[in-house]
C-alpha cells in the first residue's frame, strides 16, 4: 500500500491550499465558493480517519447547509453594493497576527505529533457498554450521543432552539409572526422544479434510512436529520415549499419536540431506571429510537429555519 500515503499527502495539501485560498482571496464570493469546495474535501479527510459518521455530518452540515447559508449571505451582501466595509489592519498588526497564528499552529502541530503512545481510549469501554443491556446499540457513536453523553446532546438541541430564536430576533418588530423571506424570489425554472421533485423524495428516503440504520451502523439522528434538512431546503429553493410562519404552533412544536421528548424520557428514567437519563434495561433500544425520531424532526426543521433568516414582511 504505497499509493495510500501519496494519496493522503495530496489530499492534505489540497485541503490546506483551498483553506489558504479562502483566507487570501480578494473577492468575497470567490472565498465563499472556496469554502464550499473545502467542505467537500473535508468529508474525504474524515473518511480517511475512519469517521464515516462525521463525514456524513460534515458533508451535510459543514459543506452543504453552511455552503448555502454563506452563498446566500454573500449574494445578499453583494446586492447591498454600497455597504461600507472597514479598513484592513495595518502592516504591524498583520505581522503580529501572522506571528501569533504561526505560533499557535506550530505549538499545536508539535503537541499533536507528540501525543502519548499508546493513546488513551474509551473505545473498548464504550463498545462494551454500548452493546450492554443499558443501551443495546451496535454503533458506539450513537450510544455515546444518546446514552453516556445524553445530557450534552439534549442541551445542544436547546442551543439550536436558542439560535433559531436569536436569528428571528434580529427581524423587525412589525414582521414578528410572519414567515421568513423565501429562499428564492423569482419563480424557478421547470428544470429546477423537476430536480427538486426528484431529489426531495429520494433524499427523504435516504435520510430516514441513515437515521434508521444509525443504531447499529454509521448514521443516526444528526446525520439523518441534517440530510432531511437539506432536502427541505431543496424544496424551498424550488418553491415547492415555503418557509412557515414563525408563530405557527406546528413549527414551534416540531422545533421543541426533540429536546422536550429527550428531557421527559430523561426525567422518567428516575422512576423507571433509578437514575436521571438512564434507560430501563429492556426498553433501552426502542426508547432511544423513539427519542432519536423526535430529534431528527427537530434538526430537520431547525437547520432550514436557521438558513431562512428572520421573519419578513407583514404578519397579516
Amino acid at each position, binding site marked *: 500500500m504505497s499509493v495510500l500515503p501519496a494519496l493522503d499527502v495530496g489530499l492534505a495539501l489540497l485541503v490546506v491550499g483551498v483553506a489558504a485560498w479562502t483566507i487570501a482571496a480578494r473577492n468575497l464570493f470567490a472565498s465563499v465558493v472556496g469554502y464550499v469546495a473545502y467542505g467537500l474535501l*473535508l468529508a474525504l479527510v474524515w473518511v480517511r480517519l475512519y469517521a464515516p459518521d462525521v463525514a456524513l455530518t460534515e458533508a451535510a452540515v459543514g459543506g452543504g447547509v453552511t455552503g448555502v447559508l454563506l452563498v446566500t449571505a454573500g449574494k445578499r451582501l453583494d446586492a447591498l453594493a454600497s455597504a461600507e466595509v472597514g479598513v484592513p489592519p495595518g502592516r504591524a498588526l498583520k505581522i503580529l497576527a501572522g506571528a501569533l497564528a504561526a505560533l499557535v499552529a506550530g505549538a499545536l502541530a508539535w503537541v499533536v505529533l507528540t501525543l502519548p503512545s499508546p493513546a488513551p*481510549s474509551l473505545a473498548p469501554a464504550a463498545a462494551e457498554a454500548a452493546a450492554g443491556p443499558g443501551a443495546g446499540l451496535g454503533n458506539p457513536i450513537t450510544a455515546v450521543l444518546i446514552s453516556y453523553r445524553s445530557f450534552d446532546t439534549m442541551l445542544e438541541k436547546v442551543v439550536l432552539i436558542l439560535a433559531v430564536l436569536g436569528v428571528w430576533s434580529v427581524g423587525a418588530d412589525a414582521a414578528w409572526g410572519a414567515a421568513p423571506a423565501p429562499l428564492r424570489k423569482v419563480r424557478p425554472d421547470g428544470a429546477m422544479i423537476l430536480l427538486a421533485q426528484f431529489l426531495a423524495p429520494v433524499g427523504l428516503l435516504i435520510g430516514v434510512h441513515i437515521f434508521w440504520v444509525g443504531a447499529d451502523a454509521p448514521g443516526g439522528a444528526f446525520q439523518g436529520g441534517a440530510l432531511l434538512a437539506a432536502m427541505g431546503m431543496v424544496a424551498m429553493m424550488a418553491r415547492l415549499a415555503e418557509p412557515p410562519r414563525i408563530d405557527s404552533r406546528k413549527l414551534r412544536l416540531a422545533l421543541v419536540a426533540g429536546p422536550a421528548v429527550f428531557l421527559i424520557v430523561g426525567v422518567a428514567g428516575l422512576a423507571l431506571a433509578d437514575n436521571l437519563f438512564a434507560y430501563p434495561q429492556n426498553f433501552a433500544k426502542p426508547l432511544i429510537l423513539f427519542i432519536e425520531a423526535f430529534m431528527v424532526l427537530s434538526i430537520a426543521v431547525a437547520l432550514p429555519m436557521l438558513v431562512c433568516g428572520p421573519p419578513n414582511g407583514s404578519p397579516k
Partner: protein
Amino acid sequence: MTPPILAGLVGAALVGFGLYGLICDPHPLRKLLAFNLVGSGVFLVFGIVARRGAAAGFAFDPVPQAMVITGIVVAFAASALAVALILRLAAASGKVTLDPRAWTKRDDGGAR
C-alpha cells in the same frame, strides 16, 4: 506518515490560517469563514485523537467523534446567527464593519 499525523498537521495549519483571518480580515463574513476554518481544524484534532484511540479491535474511539458531531451542529448554528446579524446590520446601516470608530460618530442616520 500515517493519516492521523497528517491530519494533525492539516488541523494545525487550518487553525493557523483561520486565526490569521479572524484577526486581520475586516469583513465580518470573511471573519466568519475564518472562524469556520478554525472550527474544522479543531474538529480534525478531535478526529486524530479518535483515530489514535483505536484500541485493539476498534477502528476509532467513538467519544471524540460524537463530540465532533455535536460541535459541527453548534458551529453551524453560530454561523447562522452571525449571518443574520451581518445581513441585518448591512441592511439597517449600509455598513458591514465592526470598527468601533465607525459606530461612535452619530452620523449613521443618512446611510440608507
